[in-house]
């Protein structure tokens, strides 16, 4: 049998990759990078790096970063809430998760963006749980009915209560890491158990150009010590917070991420870290950061290729759109991103469900995007030979009356070779008219309701739930928040 080719997209030559990396190292050494975190500065200082105490500027030597790269794992394993299902993050494996930390939700009934509340968060977690092509969940909505100090832990709580999938999350405050880690450990039954089977990824963003803030640096250190993977989210905006050229933005991206890798490895040798990002092409007219721009996707594919060259797992924000509603633009940009990301072999692709520059979640879009992700998966599974011979034996005794539909060969392969979407319109014109000429968002909305109606919540065991609730309420109390919205 002839081996199936895994289709692959690469935008950079090896020489180009090495040049980008060389320049990143040169900047880290000569110009240095700002790290506004005392503990990290101490770690760098102890490792023999030149640290300018007043300005928080660190001059990073190539040899130190290269040493750190040798201890960072190339492949990370994540486990679902039950601890039984294992996900490999590395190689060319692709896992989609919804774009995270949306500040609004698109209300299908009114067609308007509004602030999400607890009920939306629950629906979102339950829906994500049911979508086959979305492997991970994310703490995707910021619930507006709880005060800011607990906003980050609150969304993680619901994710753990209502879904089994591993979570892509992150902290909004330095103090939040501890209780968030405690929630995860409560599910696993202890810190050691959590480190052995990580249930979550923590996103940490440098502040371009060339700076790691106190909050995100601390998140890197804390996650490394807890054995939880960090995702490095560099996010240069071309011409605004990074050089305007794609290659120039890649140099800065690599420099910031390499510093992140070093922080993680210095905090704990061998700790898992993912080479990710959320850069964007900056719109010079409107001052916005289009995630659906083809140039944004080119930067993503480029740095992912460099991440692979460095032998690290990769991540990108792709498969999302800047459209404000589920229109043609939403489908176009999401489809392009999901397919390009999958072809590039990006390990974690965050984006599905997202509209309006990574700020608005739409449940309808999430189910549409699940279908798009399914198509991307189908594409990268490639064209397989399936049988030997491929066809000649099936044509034995061929006549014009030969029936393909009833052939055992057809029944054996049709579900594996082809997919049958539930949301994309494949009806005849007359059938489409008879069904009320429904736009895709309406069909998607019906599907959302059907999923939520027909799937009972994947609730966590009662005693674990009690412990999670205890941690959440204790943390709320410690922050002067006496009552939370009634927990469903």
């Amino acid at each position, binding site marked *: 049998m002839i081996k199936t080719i895994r289709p692959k997209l690469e935008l950079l030559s090896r020489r180009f990759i090495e040049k980008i990396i060389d320049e990143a190292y040169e900047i880290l050494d000569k110009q240095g990078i700002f790290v506004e975190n005392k503990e990290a500065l101490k770690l760098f200082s102890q490792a023999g790096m030149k640290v300018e105490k007043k300005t928080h500027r660190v001059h990073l030597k190539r040899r130190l970063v290269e040493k750190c790269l040798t201890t960072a794992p190339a492949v990370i394993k994540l486990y679902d809430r039950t601890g039984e299902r294992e996900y490999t993050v590395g190689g060319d494996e692709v896992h989609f998760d919804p774009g995270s930390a949306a*500040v609004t939700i698109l209300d299908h009934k009114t067609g308007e963006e509004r602030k999400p509340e607890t009920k939306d968060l629950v629906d979102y977690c339950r829906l994500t749980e049911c979508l086959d092509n979305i492997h991970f969940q994310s703490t995707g909505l910021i619930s507006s009915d709880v005060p800011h100090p607990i906003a980050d832990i609150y969304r993680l709580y619901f994710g753990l209560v209502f879904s089994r999938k591993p979570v892509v999350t992150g902290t909004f405050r330095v103090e939040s890491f501890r209780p968030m880690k405690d929630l995860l450990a409560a599910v696993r039954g202890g810190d050691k158990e959590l480190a052995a089977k990580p249930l979550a990824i923590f996103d940490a963003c440098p*502040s371009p150009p060339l700076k790691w*803030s106190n909050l995100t640096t601390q998140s890197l250190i804390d996650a490394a010590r807890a054995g939880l993977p960090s995702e490095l989210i560099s996010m240069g905006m071309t*011409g605004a917070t990074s050089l305007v050229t794609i290659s120039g933005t890649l140099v800065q991206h690599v420099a910031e991420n390499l510093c992140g890798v070093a922080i993680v490895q210095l905090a704990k040798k061998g700790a898992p870290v993912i080479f990710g990002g959320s850069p964007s092409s900056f719109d010079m007219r409107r*001052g916005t950061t289009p995630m659906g721009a083809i140039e944004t996707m080119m930067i993503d594919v480029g740095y992912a290729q460099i991440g692979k060259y460095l032998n690290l797992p990769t991540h990108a924000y792709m498969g999302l759109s800047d459209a404000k509603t589920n229109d043609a633009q939403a489908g176009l940009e999401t489809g392009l991103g999901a397919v390009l990301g999958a072809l590039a072999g990006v390990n974690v692709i965050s984006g599905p469900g997202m509209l309006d*520059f990574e700020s608005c979640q739409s449940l309808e879009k999430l189910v549409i995007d699940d279908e798009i992700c399914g198509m991307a998966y189908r594409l990268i599974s490639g064209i397989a030979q399936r049988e030997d011979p491929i066809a000649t034996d099936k044509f034995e005794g061929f006549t014009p009356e030969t029936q393909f539909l009833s052939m055992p060969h057809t029944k054996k392969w049709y579900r594996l070779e082809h997919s049958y979407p539930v949301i994309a319109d494949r009806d005849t014109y007359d059938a489409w008219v008879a069904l009320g000429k429904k736009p895709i968002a309406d069909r998607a909305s019906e599907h959302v309701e059907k999923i939520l109606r027909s799937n009972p919540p994947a609730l966590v065991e009662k005693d674990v739930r009690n412990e999670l609730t205890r941690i959440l309420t204790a943390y709320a109390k410690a922050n002067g928040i006496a009552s939370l919205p009634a927990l469903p």
Partner: protein
Amino acid sequence: MKKEELFARIEKAIIEGRKSEAEDLAREAVKAKIDLTEVIEKGYVPGIQKVGDLWEKGDYFLPELITSAECMKAAMAVLQPELDKANIKTKTKGKVVIGTVEGDIHDIGKNLVASMLSANGFDVVDLGADVKLEKFIEKAEETKADFICLSALLTTTMLGQKKAIELLRQKNLYGKFKVLVGGAPANQKWAEEIGADGYAENAMLAVKLAKRLMGA
């Protein structure tokens, strides 16, 4: 060089964003002892206004806009000491205290607004990013500002815009300054909800808004 020719060259230098030329021409004007207010009104101001027109027509994008604004700033840095020496008060469109609110380190949008306001004749005090709310009010009082401009990029930090207005009320200063809000999560509705005097979606609209509020 004739006055008119100098004005035309100044205007062109601003439109085309040539900084050293904009500075040189300012020096030339000083040397030739031409009335500096006239230099500003007939050379520099028409230049930056044309830049605004080109932006509105869709010919100019942010890099041209900012480059021209920086040329204005550089030229004014040459002219201002001379004006001060001669004790000439230039007409300011209004005094502005601007910054990104506490907890928020994003300053691109704020910088754009500050540059455009400054280029368009406003007196701008830029407090930078992650600015304590009290600081905005202190500075506004100190400089007798017309405007307090509050920028925020995050939904979490935009609450600072609301708190700043509450703080003004507490100090009995509400209404003394015009408060403008901006940033990705802000909008007109938010501005109205928190009792701000205005919201602008981008730097050019911020200039228009500020001019309108000053009755210009």
